[in-house]
Each structure stands twice: as structure tokens, then as C-alpha cells.
């Protein structure tokens, strides 16, 4: 396999890691508005992601850095072209961090309420906009002969991309609720389970529509198979949710999110950012890439350290494997 292909795959993997992990962080954040009935339950929700959310977010930083290093043209066009959505995502992520980290640092109820607002909005906005952004990348955007994005902010708000955004929001809600069901005990666990089942129908409907649309845009044996696999994974999760097998239900949505990301990247390849104006102006793994020398070094570094990262990040999930309930929350 050529190194450019290797890095295309690695960046896809980083996005899968980011969306699967931060997907439930965003879901839990949004559920602060929907599931918790009192202060203790809100704290239970927050503490399910407490020890791990930060490392989950690093997947995004590494995905961004890897794109910069391996495909500088892709990084440059994407980040300058999607300026306002990225700005909104950045502001939302900042507000979310502050909400999560500073919420418990002051006793007054109004402070905590504002932090909750920050966490909820700071989770909803990126959940929506990452879907919009990724769908736009797959669909193609106006890129000129110099590789510059020449569309406007509103070009990014097309029906396909908006559907992509709704898919990420709704699937992250279900994914987050499955995670809460897996990580908690008591009343909140029951509510997470029933909430997930209700929203899963909507999420399943939106995902099906999005998958069909994606496959229709780019119909190959691979996309048909992967598209089908996304839906099967989702149904697999729902099936287990019906029997309250929380771990398997969560695995189902994790798999569905991962496969959905695979579907977008497969439909993209060998482009990295197709131009909707002229095929010849599309950014591809070849014309957007770094030099073979840089890719080779990066491959060595990734090969040496990624297993280590997976190992210790996995270990941290193991350390904090215990389910928590309101009785675990200190005063």
C-alpha cells in the first residue's frame, strides 16, 4: 500500500476514534438537559465521562495534526474553507471544557446552572457541526483551481450536510444514553435505557436516510456493503438494548458510528476533498499529500506509539470501569 493511502486510512481511524469516544461525551453532555432530575444525578452523568473526556478530545487534536502533517493542502483548504463552522465548534468546545471543569468549583446553584448550559450547548454544537462538516467533505464543496474554498458559509448548509448533522446529534444522543446505561446504576440508568430506545427510532430513521443518500451518490460494492453494515450494527445495538444488555448495545452504536465514518471515507477515496466545480480541481491523496520522506517518518512514529496510546488509554477505562450512582457522589 502506498504511504498516502496508509495515511488516508490512519486519518480515518483517528476520526473513528474521535467520533466514537467524543460521541458519547457529547451525548452525555446533551443528556444533562434531558435525563437528570436533580443535582446529584447531573453529577452522576458528568462523572461518567469525568476521567476520560479530555483524552477523548485529544483524538481530534491528533486527527488535525495528522492531516496537517500528511496532507497539508487538505488541512489548509478544509480549515480555511470551513471557517465559521470551525469557529463555532472551537467556541463550543471551550465553553464545554470550562463547564465541565469549573462546575464543581463553586457552590452556588446559579453557577452550576450556567455551567450546565455551557456543557449542553458545548456538546450539541460540535455534535451537529461535525456531522455537517464531514458530510460536506464527502459530498464535495466549491473548490477552485488553486485548491481554495470559494463557497460561502451557507453553501455548507445544504440538505445532505444538514441531514449528516442531524444524524450525528441523534446517534450521539443514543450512544451517550447507552454509555450512561452502561456506567450508572439506579433511577438514571433506567431512564437512560428508555430514553435511548425512544430516540433510537428517530436516529435509525435519519441514519438510514443518510446512508441510502450516501450510497446513492457513490454506488459501489464497497459502499453498499459498508452502508448495510452500518445499519446492521445499529440494529444489533438496538436488539441488545431491548434486552437491557448495556455493553452490547453500546458496542452496537460504537460500531455503527465507526462504520458510518468508514463509509464517508470510502466514498471519498482517492479524493480527500472533492471539488463540486470541477473534478480536476479536487484535492486527492496524491496532490494534497506531504512528501514520501515525511510520510515515512510519520508512519514510523505512528507505528511505534499508537499501540502504546491505545494500551494506556484502554487501561484508564479499565481503572474507571465501576458503575456509579447517586450514592457514590460525595457531598
Amino acid at each position, binding site marked *: 500500500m502506498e504511504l498516502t493511502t496508509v495515511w488516508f486510512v490512519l486519518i480515518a481511524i483517528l476520526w473513528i476514534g474521535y467520533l466514537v469516544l467524543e460521541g458519547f461525551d457529547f451525548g452525555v453532555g446533551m443528556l444533562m438537559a434531558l435525563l437528570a432530575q436533580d443535582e446529584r444525578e447531573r453529577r452522576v452523568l458528568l462523572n461518567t465521562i469525568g476521567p476520560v473526556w*479530555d483524552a477523548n478530545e485529544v483524538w481530534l487534536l491528533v486527527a488535525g495534526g495528522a492531516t*496537517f*502533517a500528511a496532507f*497539508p493542502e487538505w488541512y489548509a483548504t478544509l480549515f480555511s474553507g470551513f471557517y465559521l463552522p470551525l469557529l463555532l465548534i472551537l467556541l463550543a468546545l*471551550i465553553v464545554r471544557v470550562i463547564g465541565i471543569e469549573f462546575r464543581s468549583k463553586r457552590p452556588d446553584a446559579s453557577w452550576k446552572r450556567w455551567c450546565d448550559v455551557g456543557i449542553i450547548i458545548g456538546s450539541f454544537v460540535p455534535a451537529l457541526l461535525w456531522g455537517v462538516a464531514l458530510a460536506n467533505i464527502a459530498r464535495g464543496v466549491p473548490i477552485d483551481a488553486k485548491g481554495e474554498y470559494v463557497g460561502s458559509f451557507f453553501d455548507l448548509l445544504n440538505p445532505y450536510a444538514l441531514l449528516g448533522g442531524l444524524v450525528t446529534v441523534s446517534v450521539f444522543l443514543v450512544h451517550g444514553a447507552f454509555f450512561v446505561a452502561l456506567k450508572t446504576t439506579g433511577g438514571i440508568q433506567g431512564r437512560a435505557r428508555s430514553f435511548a430506545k425512544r430516540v433510537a427510532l428517530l436516529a435509525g430513521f435519519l441514519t438510514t436516510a443518510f446512508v441510502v443518500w450516501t450510497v446513492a451518490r457513490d454506488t459501489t460494492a464497497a459502499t453498499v456493503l459498508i452502508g448495510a453494515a452500518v445499519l446492521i450494527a445499529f440494529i444489533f445495538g438496538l436488539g441488545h438494548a431491548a434486552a437491557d444488555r448495556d455493553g452490547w448495545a453500546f458496542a452496537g452504536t460504537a460500531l455503527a458510528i465507526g462504520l458510518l465514518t468508514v463509509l464517508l471515507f470510502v466514498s471519498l477515496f482517492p479524493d480527500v476533498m472533492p471539488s463540486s466545480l470541477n473534478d480536476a480541481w479536487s484535492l486527492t491523496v496524491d496532490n494534497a499529500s506531504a512528501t514520501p520522506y515525511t510520510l515515512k517518518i510519520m508512519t514510523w512514529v505512528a507505528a511505534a506509539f499508537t499501540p502504546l*496510546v491505545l494500551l494506556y488509554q484502554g487501561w484508564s477505562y479499565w481503572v474507571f470501569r465501576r458503575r456509579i450512582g447517586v450514592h457514590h457522589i460525595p457531598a
Partner: protein
Amino acid sequence: MDALELARWQFGITTVYHFFFVPLTIGLSVLVAGMQTAWWRTGNERWLRLTRFFGKLFLINFAMGIATGIVQEFQFGMNWSDYSRFVGDIFGAPLAIEGLLAFFLESTFLGLWIFGWDRLKPGLHLACIWIASLGTVFSAFFILAANSFMQNPVGYKLNGDWADGTGRAELTDIGAVFSNKVLLVTFPHQIFGCFMVAGAFVAGIAVWQLVRHPDRDADAFRPAARMGAVVLIVAGLGTMISGDFQGKVMTEVQPMKMAAAEALYEDAQPAPFSAFTIGTLDGSEPLFQLEVPRLLSFLAAGNFDAEVRGIDSLQAEYEKTYGPGDYRPNIPVTYWTFRMMITAGAVAMVAGAWILWATRRRRTPATRWLAYTGIALPLLPLFANSFGWIFTEMGRQPWLVFGLLPTEAGVSPGTTVAEVGTSLAAFTVLYGFLAFVEVRLLMTYVKKGLPDADPPVVSDDEDAPLAFAY
């Protein structure tokens, strides 16, 4: 203002702001790890209480660092897309490696440290904060490697020219990038700078507590104040020595920056160093100037008789090399930030010495002035860090990558004034608000004093409450 100027302001504001939190994160993670190690070794509870106290302040600061950190990586692409295209082959690699090697370590092991008091055996729990500290130091190395390339490009070849819109710099030798002489002197200078901030932070807060509440936990705050002061002074000496090396490398690779640091227009042999100038710094005769003869020669070349090139002759030389243009950085900014960096660092060291003297032989100082000093002290090395970076980056102008890419050629061609203006305004407002929140929180927890020791119990009890929860 055009998009270029707005983008420069945005980079300056967001980066200087982000860098308020970075040095303290790097330095304080080690000092907190040291305190916890002292508790682990001696079992003395005062060290555990200090660990928890400064650990809390560390985490408030760290949260701000994370919150403002993602912007840093994104804005290269958002506002500086042509720069990203030009250097991506070289600059992207250290950034990606920083994420993979440093950020994962920091975030995962800090999560384990914060929440793991009752989940991990004490030795393993202690190891977590040390590993997280190591991550912060890795992070400094890789990002400085990227920055050092901008100061002194090495290990690359040019493929085409930036002017035709297709050229870029391509990596030919990663070893050269990681052994860039600018990196080798900047890395220790920066790490010492981080320890000055952390030492001053610990010393300042502890001495404030000592003076204000002499009857409350003096036996813990006295050693903390002394520990902080010693770290501050030792790191200060390290900063001076590494800074001296740095000055010589800078004179070699960016002589214009050294000339701008002194506002030296004409070549001089030997060259004096002015501590202070009243005047315009535009090369005209100053109204008043306090000069140390021959000192600039020593700073620039390690020799009191050396010649130091002036701005005018370098300008003439650069015009010959790079074509017509103005190759002078903003002289008043470089001149004054250079001096403010040195002054703030030096005053902090003096204050550190005062704290050591005032707390000698188990004394508890009672001077009000020492309490005020304690309040101001953490800010001094912090601002010295900011001034140093403003000097370094402004002194590189008009280049983005020295000698290769002018700043104006790096800005995103497609972004509009409205876009950059919106984001500049949004970040400035949000950051201003967050500064207010952060300072209030820090003050609240500083005033509270030491928490109870509450020694952690590692248990397998499924129903035990969490040792730490948000």
C-alpha cells in the same frame, strides 16, 4: 484593518493568552508531583495537604490551558492556510507527534491522577502525575521544534517559490529539525522559564498565606514558600545562562533580531547595552539613555570587543539578498519587550531571595510588604514569558519563516475581514470573560488555605463514595 492585520492580532492574542496557562502547567505539574513524592516518602501529611491545595490550583489552570489549546492547532489552517501549505510538510510533523506523544500522555494520566486517588495504589497514583509532567515537557519540545524551524529553517529543500503560489518547503532531514541549534537553546530557556513561573506561583501564594495567617498551617506553607523560592532562583539562573546562549545563537541566525533588541542602527564595535532609553528609538539621538558599555558585544558574541551589526547595514544586506523591502521588525516593541522580559525575571529572583531570607531558621515573616510581594510575584515570571515570546515572534518579522516566507504571504487568501474580525472579537470577549472567572476561582481557593489531609483509601468497596467527583 485588513484580514492580514486582524489575523496577526488574533494569533497574538490567542497565543499570548494560551501561554499564560502553559508555563504554569509544565512547571507546577512537576512541583505538585514533588510534593506528592515528599508525602509518599515521609508520610508527613502536610505534604499531602500541599499536594491537594496546589493540585487544585494546577487543575483550574490546566483546564484553561486545554480550553484555549485547540484554537492553536486550528488557527494555522483557518487564518494561515498558505503558510500551512508552504510549511506543512515540515511543520505538521512535530504538531502531530506532539498530539500523539504528549497530549495523550498528559490527558490520560491527569485523568487517572485526578480521579484515581481511591482506585490506584499510592505508588502507581504518584507515577501518574510524573508521567503527565513528562507529557508536558514532551509537548514543549515538539512545539518548540516547530517554532525553531520558523526562526531558523533547517533540514529542508525548497520546491518552487512561494511567490508563484505552488512552492513549498519540503523536509529532507528530520534529525536536523530536532537538533536545530535554535531549538537546543530555546528548549532549556523555556523549561527554566516554566519553572520560574511555577516556583514564583508556589512561593508567592505560600508566603502570602504565611503573612496573612501566621497561625494557620505555617509548618506547611513555610517549606512550600522556601521550595518555591529555591525553584524560582535556580530556574532563574538557568534562564539567564540558557538565555545567554540563546542570544549568541540568535545573533548568528537572526542578527536583525539582536540589533532590534537594542535598537542599534549602526554597526558598533564594541557595542553598548542600554538599560533604559527615553526617546523614539528610530535612530535619532535619544533624550536620555542609561548605557552599559560593551555589554551588547558580550551578549551577542561572548566577547566584550566584538562587533555587533546594526539595523541599517542589515537592512541594506537583506535588500541585496531578498530584494527590495523593509526587513526591520517593530523596533520599540522588540526593544522594550526584551528589557521587560529581563527586568520581570530579575525582580522575581530578588523577591525569591527575600522570601528565603524572611523565612530563614523557621521564621514566620510578618511584613505586610511581603504579602503584597506574594500577590505580585506569580505574575512577574509569567509576564516575562509573554514578553520573551512577543520579542521572539515580533523580532522575526517581517518573516513568518525567516528568509523563506514573508508574513503577508502566509495568510489565508480566501478568508474575509468579516470572518477574521468575527473570530477575533469572539475569542477576545470569551477569553476576557474566562480570565475573570479563572482569577476569581484561583483567589477563592488560594484564600481557603490547605484542605484537610483526608488520606486516600484504596478500596474495592463497590459502594464507597468517589474520592473525587466533579
